[in-house]
């Protein structure tokens, strides 16, 4: 008997669909432990809030840090936290891949008719991570109210473009970090240096850091495109490396390049796993 066969749909569509299905299951699982969920959601909001509290305490002693005012630092903080929060919400548990490789449960994902990347990305999806995004967005709004920016249409457009590009760049780092865990499956902490470390760094003005470090996050791991370069343009500040002005608008292109590279890294990691079995 011939069943009506489902149409062959494109891999991205299948991926997003599988991702949403698995996410739905995790959300329901979370709700099985309501008390813990409420604590987590609150905790997450407070964690990120305390993060900024440290900056507030700093500014209770000083007026400017590296030549930047509190509102300007809050702008940097808000933009990177929102971007990072988005990537963290969508892909934040990819660092559990190493554990799945070690205990063999990755195999149960590989026999399902859905892209593995989507299934791994949705693993242990945690709604509590909305806490970071909302805190970042709140600070961003607060800083925009406090700042006296000479708005032009280009600058207005640059804000959402920057947030989305930033989220994509961080997302690429998460995927590349997970791909690395196919090889070194208990080295999940390495990616924290670039994700959590990266967003911590981007909260502060580039003028605070040594020029070599700024060069590193511009040319090697292009985190500077998450917010520094476009944000400095919006704030009307000098580019710390004296780069040409068009670079400030390069974030979307850089983000796409990062995603492509991360995708390649993932493929090669998965291929390595499937031919070595780890």
């Amino acid at each position: 008997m011939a069943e009506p066969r489902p149409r062959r749909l494109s891999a991205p569509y299948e991926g997003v669909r599988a991702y949403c299905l698995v996410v739905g299951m995790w959300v329901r699982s979370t709700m099985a432990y309501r008390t813990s969920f409420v604590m987590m959601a609150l905790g997450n909001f407070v964690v990120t809030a305390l993060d900024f509290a440290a900056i507030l305490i700093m500014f209770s002693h000083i007026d400017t840090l590296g030549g930047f005012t509190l509102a300007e630092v809050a702008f940097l903080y808000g933009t990177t936290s929102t971007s990072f929060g988005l990537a963290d919400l969508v892909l934040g548990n990819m660092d559990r891949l190493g554990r799945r490789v070690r205990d063999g449960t990755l195999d149960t994902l590989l026999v399902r008719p859905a892209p593995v990347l989507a299934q791994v990305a949705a693993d242990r999806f945690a709604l509590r991570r909305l806490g970071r995004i909302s805190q970042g967005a709140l600070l961003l709004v607060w800083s925009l109210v406090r700042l006296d920016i000479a708005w032009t249409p280009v600058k207005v457009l640059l804000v959402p473009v920057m947030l989305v590009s930033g989220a994509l760049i961080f997302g690429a780092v998460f995927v590349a970090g997970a791909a690395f865990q196919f090889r070194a499956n208990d080295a999940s902490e390495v990616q924290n240096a670039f994700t959590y470390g990266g967003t911590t760094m981007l909260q502060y003005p580039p003028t605070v850091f040594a020029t070599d470090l700024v060069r590193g996050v511009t040319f090697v791991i292009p985190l500077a495109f998450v917010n520094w370069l476009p944000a400095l343009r919006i704030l009307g500040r000098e580019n710390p490396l004296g780069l040409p002005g068009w670079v400030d608008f390069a974030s979307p292109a850089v983000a796409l390049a990062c995603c492509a590279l991360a995708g390649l890294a993932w493929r090669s990691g998965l291929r390595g796993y499937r031919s070595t079995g780890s």
Partner: protein
Amino acid sequence: MRLYAAVAVSGFRRYATYRAATAAGVFTNTVFGFIVAYTFKALWSERPHLGGYDQAQALTFVWVSQSLLAVGALMGGGFQEEFQERVRSGDIAVDLYRPADLQLWWLASDLGRAAFQLLGRGVVPLAVGALAFELALPASPLTWLAFLLSVFLGTVVGFGVRYLAGLCAFWLLDGTGVNVLCGLLGVFLTGMLLPLNVFPGALGEIARALPWSAMLQVPVDVVLGRHHGAGLVRALGFQAAWAAVLLLAGRAVQAVAARKVVVQGG
């Protein structure tokens, strides 16, 4: 006593086998060390002698705190998750019937872990920091000894807090929420983000009296040589007192939890 020594040794050995994880942790701590060091440098060049530290002392604070991050499991990663998993799966009932004391057993194991991480994850970041920045590290071996003692006490205090958090799993089943809260307090109230002596007014007073300050702030002040003679004794006594209070509280809660397990039949 020999049993607990063996447990501690096996805790040490177990973490020593995670070579890639150790290397990854050292790398991450070092990267964070650089990031925070530059922000502190900017802050202290703006306000020299903030919180009574000069710039070298502030930078020492950064690097010592990165070295102690894993030792005190300040952001999690100690025994807590394993403990909660045993509660969740019910294996804890087996532990309760062991001829060893549950709390001391986990304490010994955690101290073994901490000892490894002091060597495995503490030395390299501090050395890198000392090469890259001008730090205010003590020359006297006695100060280093006092520092080690203070780190030991701080680890026991940290264990006391995390053990209480772990015991919550008996009531909450899922410990993730508690762990998140633990991590947050571990970062903010220990002084990891910003030294507690920079905290303003009453907030600073309270933060410095809480057990979290015994985990990081006190050991760093000891290595910076800010406590002498009677002051040093007082600082160590502060840590020891919190350690005692928390361990006793842990025993009390454990007794209630054990009764719950017996009633439920595991």
